[in-house]
């Protein structure tokens, strides 16, 4: 009898614990839901006063003017420009590192380099911002001066370059995982046909891992798009449509931070506008992430 009681009590306890664990896990859904709710509800307030058409077609972003105009295009152009620069730095470097580590380096070197590179991803972004403003920008100014290019103190180029350095570990590490997941037999088959290591790496292993590599690049891109501090510090705050990385410009994230730095005027259109900008950002990064995960799944299924 006593034993029965124990089992029953245990069972109840077990059920309770399972419930607690479930609630903890389900909080992830609640958080995503909370984010969507908050951003959407404020953005809807915003679109009640500003037409969606103006938001996507106007080329002027001047929310603080007396006669405000809300076109997201300038902010998006800043975001895209800095992201393109970041990718131009991080994709070649990251992929070189990934192929080198996975196909050429000894396991010793790999074990040493990978964690050290991961330290790069751990550097606080505000420190990167400082680095962009006070190291990269002066360096570029000196390098570009002979070509007659005058680089302003705030510019998207140096912010983008530093963002690129920041996402090298993301791209290198995830691509390396994808490359290493390609079965050994494929490399051996290629070598047996007389290919050199490099030929095997570039024509057999890399194409086989391409969806995983693409997923790594997209995740890196998503990080660059969402990066705030580096651009807020080093890229300037002028929301104009940028056509060259040597210009200064504001990104979506930098605008949100800029408004937040003042006293946030709760309940005003300006307050709602940071949520509308946030919505644009959220949509961009969610799309990137979903594409990346779909690609990742594809490369996992292949082998």
């Amino acid at each position, binding site marked *: 009898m006593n034993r029965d009681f124990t089992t029953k009590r245990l069972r109840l306890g077990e059920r309770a614990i399972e419930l607690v664990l479930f609630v903890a896990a389900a909080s992830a859904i609640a958080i995503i839901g909370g984010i969507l709710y908050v951003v959407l509800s*404020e953005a809807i307030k915003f679109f009640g006063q500003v037409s969606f058409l103006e938001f996507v077609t106007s080329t002027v972003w001047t929310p603080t003017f007396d006669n405000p105009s809300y076109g997201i295009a300038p902010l998006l152009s800043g975001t895209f420009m800095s992201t393109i620069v970041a990718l131009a730095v991080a994709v070649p470097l990251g992929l070189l*590192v990934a192929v080198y580590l996975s196909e050429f380096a000894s396991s010793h070197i790999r074990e040493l380099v990978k964690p050290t590179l991961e330290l790069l991803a751990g550097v*606080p972004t505000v420190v990167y911002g400082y680095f962009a403003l006070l190291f990269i920008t002066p360096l570029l100014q000196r390098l570009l001066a002979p070509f007659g290019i005058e680089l302003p103190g705030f510019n998207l180029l140096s912010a983008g370059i530093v963002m690129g350095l920041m996402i090298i570990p993301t791209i290198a590490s995830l691509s390396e995982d994808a490359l290493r997941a390609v079965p050994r037999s494929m490399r051996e088959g290629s070598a047996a046909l007389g290919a050199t290591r490099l030929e095997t790496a570039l024509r057999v292993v890399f194409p086989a891992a391409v969806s995983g590599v693409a997923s790594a690049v997209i995740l890196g891109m998503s990080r660059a798009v969402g990066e705030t501090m580096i651009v807020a510090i080093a890229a300037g705050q002028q929301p104009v449509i940028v056509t060259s990385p040597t210009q200064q410009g504001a990104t979506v994230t930098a605008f949100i931070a800029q408004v937040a730095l003042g006293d946030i005027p709760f309940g005003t259109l300006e307050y709602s506008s940071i949520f509308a900008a946030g919505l644009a950002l959220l949509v961009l990064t969610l799309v990137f992430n979903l594409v990346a995960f779909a690609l990742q799944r594809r490369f996992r299924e292949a082998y």
Partner: protein
Amino acid sequence: MSADAAPGLDIAAHPPGLKLRKFKGASFVFWGIVATFVGLGTLVALVSQLVHDGGHRLTLDFLGSFPSTDPAEAGILSAWVGSILVIIATAFIAVPIGVLAGTYLEEYAPKNVITSAIEIAVNNLAGVPSIIFGLLAVGLFVQAFNLGQTILTAGLTLSLLILPVVIVTTREAVRGVPQEMRQAALAIGATKWQATQDHVLPYALPGIVTGIIIGMSRAIGETAPLILIGGLTFVAFLPITRPGDSKFEVIGAVDEYGAPVTPEASESVRIAQDGVVVLPDFSEMPVKAGQVVDLPHGASVQSSATWGDAVQSWTPTHWLGSEFTVMPIQMFNWTSRPQAEFLEIAAAAGIVLLAITLLLNGLAIWLRYRLRKNINW
């Protein structure tokens, strides 16, 4: 392989162009190493730039002083204390939820729609830009829940931010525990939770701790979401003591841009903490936190309470409701100022911040390495 042997039959002969092809391989290795060193070189350049700019400002005084309008006197006392308090709040929220959630997904979760919804949510959460968490915090914690721009709000926000990190690493660590451990426990009559609690989790602990450390290091360096919930840039009090700690007499007033003000010129300032304004004629005027007053030239702001009051009113949790600043925000604020002296102390703050995060990351890497080496199932 000489020329007079039958040329077409010599299968051991090197095919034409092999030298070039091998050279391409070798030069690729060269460029691979160069690329690797660009990454490592960045770290070196970063550290040396910070040390060059701010190394000489990194003194004990700097760690023990409050921010000030005078860069020569400014320090990061309130910033590092704030960072520690925010991290404590973050850990208390993120660690239990994250570890329990990770354990659930790995040990308990049935394969169904809800589980895959949770997994999709965790994956997507990891990809949400940090500033969006700031928007969530403003809309939900500050506005809807009315928690104010406090350490509690900051801790909640950052814990949501690092939750995916803790969940994912917990899952990996739990997955790494061999099935036999569970079976052995279940075979001698343990319930599922007993097996999990007494056998799986202890063996997964080093892996879980690694994840927690990485999450903490991310939280310490995070700036953007805290800017949104209004981490102050000028805090001349320690949230851990009550306002009015007599050791730190200046309460601090900020102008409408949030910049610190020594009320020497007549201006409208916002009072950061309860206290007393001493007017130029030495008459006193009590002020409340948040109040906006016009201070005449020569006024000074002092706290009204004494050290004794501070001790008396101390409670284990009151700091959660205190306003705060953290190191990244302090550094950001100094970086955005034009004067070179502020850039120097920004660099000094950067050194401290970088040292802490690199140390934590290094610790996590070392733990992971030890883990792989020591455990042979």
